[in-house]
C-alpha cells in the first residue's frame, strides 16, 4: 500500500513539473489534432507515432535532445556496477558475538594463572597428565555408555551423569578418537572445589541396530575435585584406576572398588566429571577424508607465550645448559625437523606403526583411526616434496612430571589423496600447499639428556631397532613404554594454526 502511494505521489510530482497543457506525444509545440487530447489518450496512442514522425522530420519545433547512445550505455553500466557494489556492501552475513583474538588472549592468560594456582596448591598437578586422564575417561564414558560396565566409572562421574545413558537405546560406541582438547576455564576461587572446563573435539562410531554411523562431536566438559587434593602419581593419572590400590576402574554404583573394597566418592580422590554439554554433532561421510579446504591461518602471527624468555632461561638453568642456542639448534634438527619429516613420510605410506615410538598414545590413536579409514578405501594421503621452511619456538612448560616445548613449523608440500592405482581422489599434485602447524613435544622431567645424536630408528631406552613397538608404545625388546616421554621426546599434540590459542 505504501509503495502504491509512493508511486502515485512521485508520478504526480513529475507530471506537475511538466507543462501538461502542451504535453502530448511529440510535445514541444501545439500542432493541430494534438493540443486538446488528453495526456493519457495521447500517450497511449501517439508515442511511437511521434517518434516515427520526429524521425521523419514532420515536427520541426521543440528542442531536440542530443544524447549520444554511448553515454546512455555508460550510464547504464555505471548504475549496474553501482547495484553490484551496493549488494556487496550489504553484508548479508550473520554477525554473532564471539571471542576475538584479544578475548582469547585474555582467556589464555586466565587459564595460565589458573594452572599456576593449581600447581601451587597441588604440586603434583600436571596439565599433560590431566589431559591424559580426561582422554581415558572420555574413551570409557562412550565405550561403556549403555553397557553394565558404565557403573565402573561411578567415582569419576557426578550422580546425574551416572544416570545419563539409562534411557538410551542399547547402542554400542567404539572407535572413540579425541582430535583435540582445549582448556576453556580454570576455577580455583571456590572454597570447597576447584574445577576445570575443557572443550573436546572427538569422533566416534555409534552402532545402532547394527548400523554404524560416524560422528564428529564437540563437547564441553566440566571436571571438579575437592580443593587442595594432591594429584595421584603419573601411573594413576594415565589410566582410570582406583586411587587407593591402582587396580583398573571396577567400581560399583556406590563407588566401591571391586579389588580393594575402598569407597571412592566423586571428586574426593580424583577429578570427577560434573557436567557435560554437546556443542556440535555432525554425521561424517567417507568423502570428508578427501575434502581439501583452502589453507587458513598460515599468514597469522605466531602466538607466543608471554614470558617465553623467562621460560627459556628457566629451562636452561634446570638442565644446566651452557647456552640456549646450542640446545635449540640440536632440538630443531634432531627432534622437530627429524620427527616432522619422518612422521609425515610414514603417514604418506600409511605405515603408522613405524613411528609409534615418536608419538604419544593419544596422538597415535587419533591418527591411526584416520589412517584406517584411508586403508578401508585403499587411499593414500601423499605429502610429496615436503620441506620445512621455518621453525619457531612458541612455548615452554614445565611441571613436576613433564616438560613440554611447543614450536610452530612452517612447511610446504604437494598434498593430495590418491588410490592404490594412483588415481587422484582429492588435493593437487601441482599446487604447492604452504602451511604451518603447532607441534608440542613432551618428555618426563627426569628423562636422561642425550649425549649421542638422536636416532629415530632405535628404542631410546635400549637402543634396539624400533621395529618391534607394540600398539601401546612398548618396546618389544626391552619392554619399556616409550610413548610416555620417559626416555625421549614424544610428539604430544598437533594443532592447526587457525585454532591454536596459546
Amino acid at each position, binding site marked *: 500500500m505504501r509503495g502504491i502511494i*509512493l508511486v502515485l505521489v512521485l508520478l504526480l510530482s*513529475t507530471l506537475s513539473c511538466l507543462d501538461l497543457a502542451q504535453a502530448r506525444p511529440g510535445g514541444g509545440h501545439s500542432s493541430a489534432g494534438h493540443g486538446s487530447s488528453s495526456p493519457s489518450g495521447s500517450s497511449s496512442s501517439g508515442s511511437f507515432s511521434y517518434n516515427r514522425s520526429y524521425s521523419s522530420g514532420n515536427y520541426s519545433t521543440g528542442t531536440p535532445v542530443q544524447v549520444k547512445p554511448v553515454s*546512455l550505455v555508460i550510464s547504464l553500466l555505471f548504475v549496474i556496477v553501482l547495484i553490484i557494489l551496493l549488494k556487496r556492501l550489504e553484508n548479508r552475513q550473520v554477525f554473532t558475538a564471539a571471542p576475538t583474538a584479544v578475548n582469547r588472549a585474555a582467556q589464555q592468560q586466565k587459564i595460565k594463572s589458573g594452572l599456576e594456582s593449581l600447581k601451587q596448591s597441588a604440586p603434583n598437578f600436571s596439565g599433560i597428565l590431566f589431559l591424559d586422564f580426561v582422554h581415558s575417561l572420555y574413551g570409557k564414558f562412550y565405550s561403556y555408555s549403555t553397557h553394565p560396565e558404565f557403573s565402573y566409572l561411578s567415582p569419576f562421574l557426578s550422580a546425574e551423569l551416572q544416570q545419563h545413558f539409562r534411557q538410551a537405546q542399547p547402542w554400542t560406541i567404539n572407535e572413540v578418537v579425541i582430535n583435540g582438547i582445549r582448556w576453556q576455564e580454570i576455577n580455583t576461587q571456590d572454597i570447597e572445589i576447584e574445577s576445570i572446563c575443557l572443550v573436546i573435539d572427538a569422533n566416534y562410531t555409534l552402532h545402532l541396530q547394527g548400523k554404524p554411523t560416524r560422528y564428529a562431536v564437540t563437547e564441553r566438559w566440566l571436571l571438579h575435585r575437592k580443593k587442595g587434593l594432591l594429584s595421584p602419581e603419573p601411573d594413576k593419572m594415565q589410566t582410570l584406576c582406583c586411587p587407593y590400590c591402582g587396580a583398573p576402574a571396577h567400581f560399583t554404583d556406590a563407588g566401591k572398588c571391586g579389588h580393594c573394597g575402598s569407597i571412592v566418592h566423586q571428586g574426593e580422590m580424583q577429578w570427577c566429571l560434573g557436567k557435560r554439554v554437546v*556443542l556440535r554433532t555432525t554425521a561424517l561421510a567417507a568423502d570428508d577424508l578427501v575434502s581439501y579446504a583452502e589453507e587458513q591461518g598460515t599468514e597469522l602471527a605466531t602466538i607466543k607465550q608471554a614470558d617465553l624468555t623467562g621460560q627459556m632461561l628457566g629451562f636452561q638453568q634446570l638442565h644446566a645448559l651452557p647456552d640456549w642456542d646450542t640446545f635449540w639448534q640440536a632440538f630443531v634438527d634432531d627432534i622437530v625437523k627429524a620427527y616432522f619429516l619422518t612422521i609425515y613420510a610414514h603417514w604418506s605410506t600409511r605405515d603408522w606403526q613405524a613411528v609409534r615410538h615418536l608419538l604419544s598414545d593419544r596422538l597415535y590413536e587419533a591418527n591411526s583411526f584416520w589412517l584406517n579409514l584411508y586403508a578401508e578405501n585403499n587411499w593414500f594421503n601423499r605429502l610429496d616434496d615436503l620441506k620445512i621452511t621455518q621453525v619457531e619456538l612458541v612455548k615452554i612448560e614445565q611441571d613436576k612430571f613433564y616438560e613440554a616445548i611447543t614450536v610452530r613449523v612452517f612447511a610446504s608440500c604437494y598434498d593430495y589423496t590418491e588410490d592404490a592405482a594412483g588415481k587422484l581422489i582429492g588435493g593437487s599434485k601441482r599446487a604447492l600447499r604452504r602451511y604451518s602447524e603447532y607441534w608440542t613435544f613432551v618428555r618426563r622431567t627426569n628423562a636422561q639428556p642425550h649425549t649421542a645424536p638422536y636416532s629415530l630408528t632405535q628404542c631410546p631406552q635400549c637402543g634396539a631397532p624400533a621395529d618391534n613397538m607394540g600398539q601401546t608404545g612398548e618396546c618389544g625388546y626391552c619392554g619399556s613404554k616409550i610413548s610416555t616421554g620417559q626416555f625421549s621426546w614424544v610428539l604430544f599434540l598437533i594443532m592447526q594454526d587457525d585454532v591454536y590459542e596459546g
Partner: protein
Amino acid sequence: MKKALTTEFQTRLWDAVRAIEQDSQVEVVVVIRSRSEDYRDIALVWGILGALLSFTYIMFSPDLFEDWLVYCTPVLGFAIGYALAHWPWITRLGVGKQRLQKSVEIMARALFQKAGIRHTQAKIGVLVYCSWLEKSVYILPDRGAEMALPAEEWQRLRAEFQAIFISRKPTEALIAQLHNVQPLFNRYLPRLANDINELPDAMEIDL
C-alpha cells in the same frame, strides 16, 4: 553497519556477554544482521517507478527525443530506481512498519532455531537480535528464561534494547544495555555452582 562492527567493538561485546553469563545462568547470544529480509519486491517497485517516471518525462517533456532514447531511458530509470532502493532509508520508506517488524521476528525465530539456542538444559537461552536496516532489536528468550523473569521486566527490557537505535551510536548503546541487564538476570536467574556454558562460543549460523 560493517564499519560499526570493528574488532574493538566485537571484543567489548564479547566481554559484555561473558559478564552476563558469569553472573547468571542465562546464556546470551547476540546476533547482528544488516537486514532481516531482502525486500527485493521493494527494489523492483522502485525500479518500476524509476522506469515509469523516466517514461513519463520522455512522453510529456517539451523536448524531442530520438527513438532509441525513448526505448533506453526507462531501462536506465529502472536501474537507477533499483539501485536507489539499496539505500536503507529508501527501503524503509517503501515498507510498512508492520512488515519490518514481522521480518525481524521471522529472522529472529529462524536464528534461534538454527543457532540451537534451545539446546540448553534449563531452557535459559536468550537471543538478542539486532537488525540494522529495520532499526529493530528482537529479544527472544527460551521458555525457562521467559518464565524466570516477570512479563513486566521483559517488556521493559525490550523497550530499553529497542532504544539503542535512538542513540547516535547504536553499537555503543547495545554494549551499555547489555551491561545494564546484567543485574536483572543475576536477580532472577543467579549463577549456580558448577554452572557450565552450554552453547558454543563461536556460532556459525548459515542463513
